[in-house]
């Protein structure tokens, strides 16, 4: 009738008790194999199938309490449940057929990889500044969450300090690009397991850890990062990848001058310290340097901005610095060193890697610092104050 016909789940499993009376379609295997797993990990494949304008399992079309539409017995195929349909229908019936996947061990990297590919192809959320795991209940493959409010708070704070809208937009875009690069890398490189297998462990605060890159780069050098891809060069590409980051505001607003997002004009210096949400999140999280690429990291945190900039360089002891910009969300494994490098740079009188969103200076500073450990002889004043990471010992 006016309902779409849905395949019968029981029939596909081989046991539908309704037989011919069944109101669902007894066809074989129209659904992709991921059905057995129900819940929408691969639900994406359903998206293009039989889009149901009425929405599966939606009572809303029936305004009254009675299930009028369902009273129609001829309408065999009104599906009150479905496993997934990304169009509009919410499908609640995605039972957790698998045991709680806390034990997902990524024993088959190929499968994991495929899961990642499918996820990225079909279920990329609109908000890109997010962590990600290819498997529910598993630790993150990509760390480094930034929430809407954090981004907004930083933007408002920037505005209060006089930054123009355009530079705020640029900063956000840089952040976004770095994140997209991370996702790209996860997609491209052989999958080697989530960032940290010991997620359950509580990390002493604030020595948080971050290692988004290690698993992805295990293929190459250890503790490596994404190749020297300039996120600027990807600007065009990543802009097309779904995030709505286009500069379209200039003409609309008279934002040549510093904007104030809110009515308050107080220039609070709250965020001048490292309480900036982003910076905070990115605060100089340390991590005990670990050699093993993936597993031993306990991840619960990512270091952004300066941290990441410095740490990135530090990690790649002799490798080129990563393209990630200042606010890059490229969480790397910052060895304890990287905190030191700040001290070093300060001690040296170089411009400290303070939380300035926008200077590329840091990168250079950092590069210098990272070689500290490789130097044979230290000049007084540049002796690191902390022990070198194990890598160097």
């Amino acid at each position, binding site marked *: 009738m006016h309902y779409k016909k849905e395949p019968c789940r029981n029939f596909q499993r081989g046991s539908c008790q309704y037989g011919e009376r069944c109101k669902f379609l007894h066809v074989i295997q129209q659904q992709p194999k991921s059905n057995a797993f*129900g*819940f*929408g990990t691969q639900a994406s494949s359903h998206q293009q199938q039989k889009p149901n304008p009425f929405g599966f399992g939606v*009572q*809303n079309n029936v305004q009254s309490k009675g299930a009028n539409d*369902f009273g129609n017995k001829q309408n065999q195929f009104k599906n*009150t449940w479905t496993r997934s349909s*990304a*169009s*509009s229908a*919410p499908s*609640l019936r995605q*039972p*957790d057929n698998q*045991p709680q996947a*806390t034990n997902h061990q990524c024993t088959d990297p190929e499968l994991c990889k495929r899961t990642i590919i499918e*996820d990225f192809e*079909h*279920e990329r*959320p*609109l*908000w890109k500044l997010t*962590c*990600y*795991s290819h*498997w*529910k*209940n598993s*630790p*993150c493959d990509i760390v480094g*969450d930034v*929430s809407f*409010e*954090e*981004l*907004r*708070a930083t933007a*408002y704070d920037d505005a209060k300090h006089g930054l123009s809208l355009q530079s705020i*937009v640029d900063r*956000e875009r840089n952040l976004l690009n770095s994140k997209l690069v991370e996702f790209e890398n996860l997609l491209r490189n052989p999958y080697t397991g989530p960032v940290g297998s010991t997620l359950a462990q*509580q990390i002493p*605060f604030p020595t948080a850890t971050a290692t988004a890159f290690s698993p992805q780069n295990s293929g190459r050098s250890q503790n490596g990062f994404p190749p020297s891809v300039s996120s600027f060069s990807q600007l065009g590409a990543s802009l097309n990848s779904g*995030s*709505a*980051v286009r*500069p379209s*505001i200039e003409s*609309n*607003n008279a934002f040549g001058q510093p904007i104030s997002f*809110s*009515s*308050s004009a107080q220039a*609070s210096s*709250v965020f001048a310290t490292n*309480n900036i949400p982003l910076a*905070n*999140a990115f605060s100089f999280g340390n991590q005990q340097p670990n050699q093993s690429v993936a597993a031993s990291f306990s*991840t*619960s*945190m990512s270091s952004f901005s300066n941290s990441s900039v410095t740490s990135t360089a530090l990690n790649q002891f002799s490798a080129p610095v990563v393209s990630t910009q200042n606010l890059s969300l490229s969480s790397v494994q910052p060895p304890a060193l990287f905190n030191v490098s700040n001290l070093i740079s300060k001690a040296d009188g170089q411009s400290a890697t303070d939380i300035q969103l926008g200077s590329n200076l840091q990168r250079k500073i950092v590069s210098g610092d990272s070689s500290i450990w490789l130097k044979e002889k230290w000049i007084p004043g540049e002796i690191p104050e902390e022990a070198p990471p194990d890598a160097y010992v």
Partner: protein
Amino acid sequence: MSNFLTATTLGNPNPNKSFEVSEPPNDSVSSLSFSPKANFLVATSWDNQVRCWEIMRNGVNVASMPKASIMHDQPVLCSTWKDDGMTVFSGGCDKQVKMWPLMSGGQPMTVAVHDAPISEMAWIPEMSLLVTGSWDKTLKYWDTRQSNPVHVQQLPERCYALTVKHPLMVVGTADRNLIVFNLQNPQTEYKRIVSPLKYQTRCVAAFPDLQGFLVGSIEGRVGVHHLDDQQQSKNFTFKCHREGSETYSVNSLNFHPVHHTFATAGSDGAFNFWDKDSKQRLKAMSRCSQPIPCSTFNSDGSIFAYSVCYDWSKGAENHNPATAKTYIFLHLPQESEVKSKPRIGTSGRK
């Protein structure tokens, strides 16, 4: 829907014909909270204000009257009422919590501080404590009469979401941690799990029967999670707030206080009512022209308040303060929308 947000002036902000609250804030609303005792609504906003309206309901007519407001120094992110319905707590980017005895006309005073913006808070009547979660990765419990917290609980990551139903408390943090606390023993994590969803946690809501909680993420998905190991088979996730290939964030999860069904609100500007026990959507409301960052039921579930305004889900670029509009709407849920229904399918699959 790439023109979704740019067309804020074109799309209908109120396709559901909800009642519009008068004198909304000048910038986006970050939280909405009804008094537990009466129909007083508090909204916190990015314009640094905490506003209160009295909502009067007469049958199907609803009227709102602005009552009072206070200001913070920075955007306010969260709010909660004390159980006596006399006092409101609010906190945000200024890293402080103000206690405002608004019903008695008192002045606000600062009762809590953190090292970073306070993203979530809840009043726990059974303990007479305020719990606050912050981006400084701690939870702090406050007896409002003392300036130091009663207890500081370290979190693995920044607090993004919080829900309390004594003695169950669930905290969602960055990087998909979900930490469950038994408030009878708040110093110990009862359980820590990794989210059943694959992306950033956005909101959590504890079941009224305390058996588990809901978790919503930015990927347009909600997870239903039971705490008891024996009930793990009842866990499931479902997709929502998606449009075509676009996947919007689920910004708010609210249980109906009476029927124990729940509502979701998302960045797609829609809100839906669901029944987790029969696993169905009870009602899908029409999409508003802007995202819905927050929503709440009143104490008896007769009013559902939601805000339609920009939630930053597309960054600073899509924020135009000159033309941005903020709305707060009140929807009177019909029984069919929020009352549990048996699944039509299961009872014989007619």
